[in-house]
């Protein structure tokens, strides 16, 4: 290679090195500048926000506005918009009136119609903070916007405004199937607007597209009342399981005998997650008429369905101890285990054991009976552990008495093992020693198998 080309190469390498270093310095300076600007802006925002505490009168606010330069006005607009979003009562209405009076609201209306796409999205978002008929109309019109983020902002704003006049826009969005708007966002917005007038969205259940029907059923699951029952009863035969599952959820809101009949059909649906939703809805209805159906769900071949049935029973009866004995006597081992497992996850054992010091005699006896059932079913490990950890020595001693009264394998060994563990109360330890002396250890061979 010639000397000239070597020089050229050296220059190229040097250029690359300088270029890289230059970019690094530029990035740093840019970030530093940005950081400083942000700090200045935050400081200015804090100063302006301080002026608004306590909320200013309209005249004082106008005076402050007239004194501000362009940048400060922008910050003031942001503060007032935030106030419309977060504040309540007079503070909120005062800020909204000012934004309207000063012409900012009109500017948003103009931007949502004619602005660039990012401006349109911002305006659509901001229009949701101030309730006004013109804003709702503009948002409904913007539901057909070509830019997906504008449509998303429209859905959120209409949902925030909770105005039934916004429903046409939301229904248009639901039928348009925009991917940027999650189904549940649209459903929540529809539900917010259709509160008290659910029949307005019941028509979505007859839409040709599955996604629209799902959104409709989902929205109804939050606002359904007896007026939507005809539409829901038709929809339980929908070919799409997702729609049927959402319909089940909606039926859970309608406390009527007819809805119970419809739910009983859905509780036998071939698709497991529809059965799950139906059992969930039956639990929400809290009607004891649903008990046979829910008890049937406890023996389903799918664990999710069984768990939901146990949860539904908990919702209906509130972890009633007596139900344990009932399921123990009537159901299979699988049903019983599922019930105990699900309830214990919700703190059943703690609540149950607390019943040993209640003054309510009926509950006390029921608690004792349930504990005996649990011991008979071989679920002693958790009860023995309760003897160690339950807050309240009186309860622990009563529980201990129940445990030793029923001869079960390994119980005494487990209890004796508690003595050495940290946190074991000396009185409990003494009681365990005492009963250990009185009753000889029982081996598992002496006990019949734990079949239910």
């Amino acid at each position, binding site marked *: *290679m010639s000397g000239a*080309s*070597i020089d050229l*190469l*050296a220059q*190229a*390498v040097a250029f*690359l*090195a300088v*270029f*890289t*270093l230059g*970019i*690094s310095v530029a*990035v*740093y300076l840019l*970030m*530093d500048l*940005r*950081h400083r600007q942000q700090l200045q802006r935050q400081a200015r925002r804090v100063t302006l926000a301080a002026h608004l505490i306590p909320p200013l009168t309209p005249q004082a606010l106008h005076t402050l506005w007239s004194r501000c330069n362009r940048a400060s006005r922008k910050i003031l607009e942001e503060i007032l918009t935030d106030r419309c979003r977060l504040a309540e009562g007079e503070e909120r209405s005062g800020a909204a009136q000012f934004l309207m009076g000063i012409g900012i609201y009109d500017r948003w209306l103009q931007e949502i119609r004619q602005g660039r796409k990012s401006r349109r*999205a911002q305006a659509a*978002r901001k229009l949701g903070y101030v309730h006004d008929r013109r804003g709702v109309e503009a948002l409904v019109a913007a539901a057909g916007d070509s830019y997906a*983020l504008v449509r*998303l*902002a429209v859905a*959120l*704003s209409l*949902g*925030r405004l909770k105005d039934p006049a916004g429903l046409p826009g939301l229904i248009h969005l639901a039928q348009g199937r925009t991917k*940027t*708007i*999650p*189904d*549940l*966002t649209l*459903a*929540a*917005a529809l539900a*917010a607007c259709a509160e008290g007038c659910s029949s307005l969205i019941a028509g979505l259940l007859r839409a040709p597209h599955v996604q629209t029907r799902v959104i409709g059923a*989902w929205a109804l699951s*939050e606002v359904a009342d007896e007026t939507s029952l005809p539409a829901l009863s038709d929809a339980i035969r929908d070919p799409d399981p997702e729609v049927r599952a959402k319909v089940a959820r909606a039926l859970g809101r309608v406390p009527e005998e007819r809805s119970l009949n419809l739910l009983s059909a859905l509780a036998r649906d071939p698709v497991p997650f529809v059965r799950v939703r139906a059992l969930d809805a039956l639990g929400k209805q809290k009607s004891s008429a649903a008990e046979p159906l829910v008890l049937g769900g406890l023996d389903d071949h799918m*664990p*999710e369905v069984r*768990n939901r049935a146990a949860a539904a029973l908990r919702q209906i009866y509130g972890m009633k101890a007596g139900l344990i004995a009932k399921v123990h006597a009537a159901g299979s081992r699988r049903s019983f285990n*599922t019930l*105990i*497992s699900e309830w*214990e*996850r*919700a*703190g059943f*054992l*703690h609540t149950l054991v607390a019943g040993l010091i209640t003054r309510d005699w009926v509950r006390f006896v029921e608690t004792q009976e349930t504990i005996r059932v649990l011991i008979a079913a071989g*679920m002693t*490990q*958790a009860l023995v*552990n*309760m003897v160690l*950890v*339950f807050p309240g020595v009186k309860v622990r001693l009563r529980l201990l008495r129940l445990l030793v009264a029923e001869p079960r394998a390994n119980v005494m060994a487990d209890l004796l093992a508690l003595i050495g563990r940290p946190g074991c109360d000396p009185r409990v330890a003494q009681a365990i020693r005492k009963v250990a002396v009185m009753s000889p250890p029982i081996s598992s061979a002496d006990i019949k198998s734990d079949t239910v």
Partner: protein
Amino acid sequence: MPISWLFQLAWVVKVLVLGYFISLNGLCFVILFLSICWCRRYRRAADVQAIDFDALEKLEKLVPPVTLVVPAYNEERVIVQSVRSLLGITYPSIEIVAVSDGSTDGTIEELIRSFSLYQADVRPSGALATQPVRAVYVSAIEPRLVVIDKQNGGKADALNTGINFCQTPYFLAMDADSLVEPEALTCAVRVILEDPERVVAVGGIVRGVNGSIVDAGRVRRPSLQWNFWVIIQMVEYLRSFLAGRAGWSLINGLLIVPGAFGLFQKAACVKVGGYSTDTVTEDLELILRLHRYARDRRLGWRVAFAPDAVCWTEMPTTARALGRQRKRWQEGLWQTLSRHSDMYFQPRYGVVGMLSVPHHVLHELGGPLVELSSLLLFPVFYSLGLVNWEELAVYLALAFFLGTLFSLAAILLDQVLFPRHRFPRDVLLLLALSLLENFGYRQMSMYWRLVASWNYLFGRISWRVSTRTGFATRAE
């Protein structure tokens, strides 16, 4: 004759190195471009916040519940703070399943003491095969928490146990030593809800908590620790996530969802058999199996990335600890890619088969070998006069320039779109280390990866345990 043979060898090596160099940097440029496009689009969508609990109160009842599965092995120093941080997540419907994987320290005792746990007869609803469960605890004061004590079986086994006890349609797999930002879960769920039929996994971004002020399980003031290894890792993480995974996510070629923050559809994971317990990078292996399962059955599943779902984790602070971590990752990569070797260049696996997997094989597994051979052979060739120093200089300068450019682009993307480190000093440190990483660190990284490759090829893989120091709190 020997000289002519050496000439031919030099030519072959030069062509190989050049081919490697062009393919790696060309692909990285394309992915960087895609990442920039995707991050901008994501930021714009995130600004409108499709899941806005403030705007739509009813959303709180409609969003799907999520179970946070927290595997823990000897994490007594951080476990309580981690669980507290998780309980502070703003997502309305969460359950926490903490799994102690046969811990030999006071992990379970700490949890029992802090959350008034008591043993309960809770049974799993799933049927993934795992090591036996010793006890299940529920909390008397926190109904959303379930703690499982099981025999040791590794992180994957603990995650599978957590999945078995999960009762929600989605679960978040994470590390016990990580802190999740309160909004992170909502951000990740939003990505799923935009396309719930197809998105089965979402990965978040991992950032280093070292040097930041942590209070009540939350990172209050993100800052960088004055430690070479920590800052260099931050640069690497930013480059990997923002200039890499974002682009792969756009074309559905993402292979890695971080173990510290991965949101999964439970049904999909159960269908593919849960986590594999015989690899050291179970997260990568699971993602590859999800891709394979979906493409075999034409299900159209997607694995996505959420750059604003931030998870803070403690990074190794010494070269030794970092080396152990990197070796483990490289060994895991070898294991997983060997297991899925039938996916290479298979059109039926789409972008994953034709681009992602070959990229990982050629550039991640083969990279250290190419770099080592070029480092060893070029001086020999130069001393024999088979290559000239100008070629060498151009190669090194370009390698340095392009490597730095990717790091700078990642830092810029981070600062403009998803800023966390706002102090100029932190930015300056990141920039400085992005320039310096080519001198020394890159070669060390290559060495660790080579050692790991050697270990894999000659059967010396072992799980290396890292020690935790706990998070720095405001009081400290």
